[in-house]
């Protein structure tokens, strides 16, 4: 829908009146905000994962107050599986994820590469478990 709107605007304004996109100088600022927000959310998520059953979190010095194990997401959770997904839905969903993370596994950013490799592992695990087994 969105791309269709863009295309129609392009036709109407044939003199080259552009798509109403904003200046990239404010886009830069937004991008930095978004990155900062992501880092905060990732840090919060790590702290939440390491919270033990009593609700204790690691102290500021980094030492844990408790010995609770770190909770990690399952492959299904990482891939965002939803109830009611058919095999075909899942296949298409995994294709999109694979395309995204295969590309990101070549990122110049090492953190992104690590994250994407973990996602690729999760994607193939889900595929083996829910699609290839279903076919067999």
């Amino acid at each position, binding site marked *: 829908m*969105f791309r269709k*709107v*863009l295309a129609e*605007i392009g036709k109407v304004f044939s003199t*080259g009146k*552009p*798509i*109403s*996109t*904003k*200046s*990239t*100088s*404010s*886009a*830069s600022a*937004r*991008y930095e905000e*978004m990155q900062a927000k*992501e880092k905060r959310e990732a840090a919060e998520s790590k702290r939440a994962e390491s919270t033990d059953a009593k609700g204790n979190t690691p102290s500021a010095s980094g030492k844990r107050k408790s010995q609770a194990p770190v909770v990690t997401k399952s492959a299904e959770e990482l891939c965002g599986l939803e109830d009611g997904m058919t095999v075909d839905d899942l296949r298409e969903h*995994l*294709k999109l994820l*694979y*395309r*995204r*993370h*295969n*590309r*990101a*596994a*070549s*990122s*110049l*950013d*090492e953190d*992104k590469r690590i994250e994407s*490799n973990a996602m*690729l*592992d999760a*994607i*193939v*695990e889900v*595929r*083996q478990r829910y699609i*290839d087994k279903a076919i067999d």
Partner: protein
Amino acid sequence: MAAKYVGIDLGTTTSGLAILRDDGHPEIVPNGDGERLTPSVVYFDRHEGVKLVGSSARDGGDPDRTVHCIKKRMDDPNYILEFDGRRWTPPEVSALILAKLERECSRIIGDIDEVVITVPALFNELARKSTVAAAKMAGLKVRRLVNEPTAAALYYAHRFGIMGRILVYDLGGGTLDITILEVFGEEIRILLSEGARHLGGSDFDEIILEIYARQFRKERGAELFTDERQRRRVLKAGEDAKKMLSKLKQVTDTIGNDKDGIAQVNLTREIFEDAVSRLMLRTEMLVEQALAGAGLKPTDVDHVVLVGGSTRIPRVREMLERVFGFAPRSCGNVDECVALGAALFAHYGAQVKEVCNHGYGTLAIIENIETGEETFQNSIVIPKNTPIPCAESQTYITSEEDERFIEVEITQGEDTDPRYVDVIGKITLEVPPGRPAGCEVTVTYSYDENQRVRALVHDKESGRSQDIAINYKGEGVLSDKQVEETAAFISTLRIE
């Protein structure tokens, strides 16, 4: 007399040089050790200052002074090695490999004037730039870079005289590349290239290493290796076992160390294939992605060609036969066809129509006119797989009054989500004060036949423009001056 058409496959695990003979057929040129392929391994000798490249580097010496698979680091702007007080970047190490090939092969074929060098299709801008820099530092002039599957496809088409739609599955030491192309007469048209990194023979070797370590731990209650030298030995044993499993269903090996004794390990093909099944599935998903990207079904492909030593694994053939309904082919020696194709490309490259391997764009806030919703996106200017050379433009408008600087961030990647693309450059254009919002800014990207991108920003209101070629920053990124200095330094080195 100078050798006219020379191609080099600078591989993750082995490298090769080929020339085009007068009869029009390419031929591999052996190195000074008589080997057709040179292991891409460099040893930094401490005592004599000599740099060993190839089998002698791989098979002996202090493993802490031995560099393997440097190609995997060619796009890492911060990766540095240090030996004897000198820092070495990945392109500088690669230059030593190229220098060995240049020196030793030129004794057989004459001076080498220009070369075509192959790179994985997924190599990004930085890795390609690093490869060209490595060649310069080795004293080589690069006529063209060509993608490895393209070179292999050219060799396959030449060797067998085939026509039609070909899918090249190139699984080498470190990367997987898949290219779909069409061959009609003398012309080759690339439709699409896809790639995956850290997916190759060296990754399979690491898996066998883990199997051996686990089995030894179970039998001897101790660690199989505790230092790099031991680890390398086991890795080599694992690689040998992997190769044997391409021909045998089971391999029995003896592994051990000086302290904890030895143990016998049985590695069956089934155990190996099960252990690498997830990596194999990744390759199958890349095949599916390539077909979908080209809008093709498996039945639309006429030929499937195998390239790279890792395609000898029987599971690879089985998978491709299952997907396509017919057996894939190889062009004889799967390790050499890339170099042979590169030599052909040196002469016939003009007949090959290539495509952009990556999409390029800029970060922008996109407003939906109908709903007023604003989203922050990667706005793609050159889509991936656009035929090259090409130039594409996209026009934007400024949103603020009195903006003094227009900043355009250049992205590489195909995703519209900015989190999944790389920002590879930035242009800052200074404009006069007192401007209203809504001024038009045109961003033009041009992409040349070496897969290098240039960006131009033009402000309509002021008429000002700014253009750049992409430059990376990082400890491992060399300036032109540093490349020249290193070239002079390498020319003085003894490389064996």
